[in-house]
């Protein structure tokens, strides 16, 4: 036997419908996590039924977006939804037990979205390297086209 893990992307408005569908099919709710990306926040819902463990990703959630809570279907998801709200700033509407931002009452607001100096350094270095590569690539292209032109001029001169 093995575990079948699959990842699918769903729309923001489908989180509750998908939860309902999973509940009807006999799946249990495993977890909800969020990730900070350059385009916003991604959320991943995971369900499990035996060896089948599908995960559903909602991409690029902005600050102004609002996601429907799945606690009417899976009550125990309130722990994860409060966590995602407090640490990532995602607005989730209709949580059965809503702590209104006091579940993880940390000093820094939306602490998991803060870009640390180490991460910023790595990103800046990556961007510099990418820029340098593109400049050297375009330089090489220019040089090779100059070479071609000079060859053509030489042939014409002959």
């Amino acid at each position, binding site marked *: 036997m093995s575990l079948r893990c699959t990842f699918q992307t769903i729309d923001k408005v489908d989180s509750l419908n998908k939860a309902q569908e999973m509940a009807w099919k006999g799946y249990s709710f*495993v977890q909800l996590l969020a990730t900070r990306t350059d385009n916003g926040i991604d959320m991943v819902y995971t369900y499990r039924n035996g060896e089948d463990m599908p995960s559903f990703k909602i991409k690029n959630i902005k600050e102004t977006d609002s996601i429907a809570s799945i606690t009417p279907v899976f009550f125990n998801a*309130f*722990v*994860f939804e409060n966590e995602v709200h407090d640490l990532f700033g995602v607005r989730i509407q209709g949580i059965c037990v809503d702590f209104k931002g006091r579940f993880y*009452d940390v000093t820094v607001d939306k*602490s*998991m979205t803060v870009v640390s100096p*180490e991460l910023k350094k790595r990103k800046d270095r990556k961007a510099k390297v990418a820029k340098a590569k593109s400049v050297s690539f375009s330089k090489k292209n220019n040089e090779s086209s100059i070479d071609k032109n000079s060859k053509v001029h030489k042939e014409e001169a002959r």
Partner: protein
Amino acid sequence: MAKTSVIPFGPQHPVLLEPLHLDLIVKDEKVIEAVPQINFNHRGLEKLVEQKDYNQFVYVAERICGICSFGNSMGYSEAVEQLFKIEIPIRAQFLRVIWHELSRISSHLLWMSFVANAFGFESLSMYCWRLRERILTLFENTTGSRVIFSVCKIGGVSKNMDKSQLQEFKHVLNGLKDEYAQLCKTFLNDKSVQSRTVDVAYLSYEEAKKYCLVGPFARASYLNNDVRCLGLGAYGKLDNFKPVLDSGGDCYARIKVRALEVLQSTEIIEELIEKIPEGDISINVKGSIKADAQASVIIEQPRGEAFYYVAGNRSKFLDRMHVRTPTAQNIGGMVTCLAGCDLADVNMIILTIDPCISCTER
């Protein structure tokens, strides 16, 4: 006339060993509702992936919790190995499961001592600690450490066990069985224990399924979601693994499930020691993670199913690492159990879900 009041319980309480706060809304001596509050032990460990690369983060993962230390490092390592799509040597799989099952015995003995202490049976509590010392000595002899072992790494394990060490395991576990049987007898047959636990905080199979409970908390309500049944890793080499289930659904059933799981773990370890093959204990894992890679893994920790998610993108640093621990999953069920119980039973109910708040908050 009945008066409603709110009694704060925790995070500091003589019988509560975890930093959990509950606002107990009580009427006379009956709890009507319990509102949980955590956030006393949040360390932001998941954010450390930005500073530690995937090899270094194993040492952070095993420090998420002291009791579930090995399980956390094993789950994290398996998730990263899935990212790289590699399979570790069979001997390493066996060694991981042997240490993991020994970890389960240690965790359950620790829990049993806390439960005995909670219902006032001090000598029984000390007896459990005495037995647990032998397990910790085994850990020290094979890994060099009693609590946080640092033997799991990406690609396998960093320490091997020779034949003499494996035989010592069998010898110690055999010697433990008689004394443990006496302990079990007291836990399960003593009238004072039964008076505090039988018919307390009953949760039916349907409720356990509805609240997606995991671990012994679920198995005590006859809900089988034991990850070991999937046969992943060395668990697939076991002849006949059957999870310990009980239909009692009360605190007594939860004690019974954990007590019997200790015996089951000793049998698993003995079987794996007989079957462990010779060979390498690790493979070299180098390089960066592929673009937009993600992987998830579940393992059966002593408290239940634990979920690990990792994602990376063309670097030796992970973009994200997430752990969903069994206690986080069981908090909903715990709150349900507390509604309608007697005030005197609150600490027993909380203890029977075996909470581990440092895991939950990370």
